[in-house]
């Protein structure tokens, strides 16, 4: 059974969002990294870019597959995990912690409220088979 942190929120595109005050840290879920396999490439947006919920903000690639990254909330990129492109396999090792992708300043709190809880995401993943 996969475990998803209870204090995070989750999108159906398999990104997680961890809100602390007005700052939201974003990453891909353990389910996503498993589905992708060995991750060998990651491309992240520049600081300052404004993203709408659902907008593509980067890409992760495994040996076999290419997957777009979709912003789980609406807001501005205020920090990027700059070490990640040199060591993309971190996403396989610690998807929910060390291998966060970007931090955003939340512009529209309703976009965060609409995301799934850990329990709902877990059921969602189960339903995908």
């Amino acid at each position, binding site marked *: 059974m996969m475990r998803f942190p209870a204090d995070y929120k989750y999108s159906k595109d398999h990104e997680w969002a961890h809100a602390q005050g007005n700052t939201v840290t974003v990453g891909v879920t353990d389910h996503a990294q498993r589905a992708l396999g*060995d991750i*060998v490439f990651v491309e992240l947006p520049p600081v300052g870019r404004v993203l709408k919920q659902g907008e593509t903000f980067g890409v992760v690639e495994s040996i*076999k597959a290419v997957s777009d990254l979709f912003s789980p909330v609406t807001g501005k990129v205020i920090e990027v995990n700059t070490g990640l492109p040199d060591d993309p396999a971190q996403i396989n090792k610690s998807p929910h912690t060390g291998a966060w992708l970007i931090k955003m300043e939340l512009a529209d709190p309703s976009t965060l409220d609409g995301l799934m809880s850990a329990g709902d995401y877990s059921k969602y993943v189960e339903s995908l088979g």
Partner: protein
Amino acid sequence: MLKRTAIYEEHVRAGGRIVEFGGWEMPVQYTGLLDEHLACRAAAGLFDVSHMGEVHAEGRDAEGFVNHLVANNVAKLSVEQALYTPMCNDEGGIVDDLLVYRRAPDRFLLVINASNTDKDFAWMQKILARERARFSDVRLTNESPSYSQIAVQGRNAAKILQPLVNADLSAIKYYWFKEGTVLGNVPAIISQTGYTGEYGFEVYLPWHKGADLWRALMDAGKPHGLKPCGLGARDTLRFEMRFPLYGHELLDNTNPLEAGIEWTVKLAKGDFVGRTPTASLKERGLARKLVGLKVTGRGIPRPGYPLYSPDGAMRLGEITSGTHSPSLNLPLGIGYVTLPHAADGARVLIEIRGTKIPAEIIPTPFYKRPY
């Protein structure tokens, strides 16, 4: 309805992730593609390739017929010898690539791609019907459901397989085979072939014995670092050798001369299907050829990505296969490039998600085995 090999349950038990491939439910990976790829390079990999199709061509005129069907020279094969060859259409495009085994002077085994099995067999029947006057004594049968096929690839392949077979593996040369037994009394064809670039063997045996041999090999392989390998690793292993794959490098509108397998085309052997357009292409000169590419910027080439001249002005072709090479730890691609821009050392641009990324044409195979 998707088909399953006789070894399917073993794949599920081993944690294989099952995907659809060419009408079959096959494992794409078990522990992880990278792990499996590197195990095959360093020790040994085990592959269920039972989805491949098998066709028997038998009779007094079988040699002449098979030689007419394919571009390589089947007449030169001794009994217990095999060859790799494209099978062309009338335009010189490729219907499929296959292995031809000569089991007796008048008996051939043709091994074809899973996803092409029905198309290939229909094509073979069509050519036979067209040429019946010349090849009256040929029986062509699709025996695909009768065979399981397992590949043991890697430097430890013989150590793992030898205890399970009656043939002396050290006496089987590259692209030769023996008809013997496995697991005591199970009839089998054991060839020194494979599509990974490693030393190794492929074993053909009765369909219902596939799982028994798989389990025995998994046990025998434990002390030798053997890992089961899925379709993912099979693809990256062949890619690093620049071995072409049907549906990527080989298509019904690509000619073998362009696809880097000109060594399989024997224009001097006499007439064969696709010979005339191929000979005329050779005379005119190729317009494009398949090359290896190393990305010098940041990005991974993937099938379909366009290739451009260094100034970005001229489209030169496109990527047919590409990935981050597990053995070389580099993003590499193969693709068709218009001549005369396809020389080793030439620079090109690969368009990756709207950005043109620099790359260089490099010699292939990308990987050479160190033993």
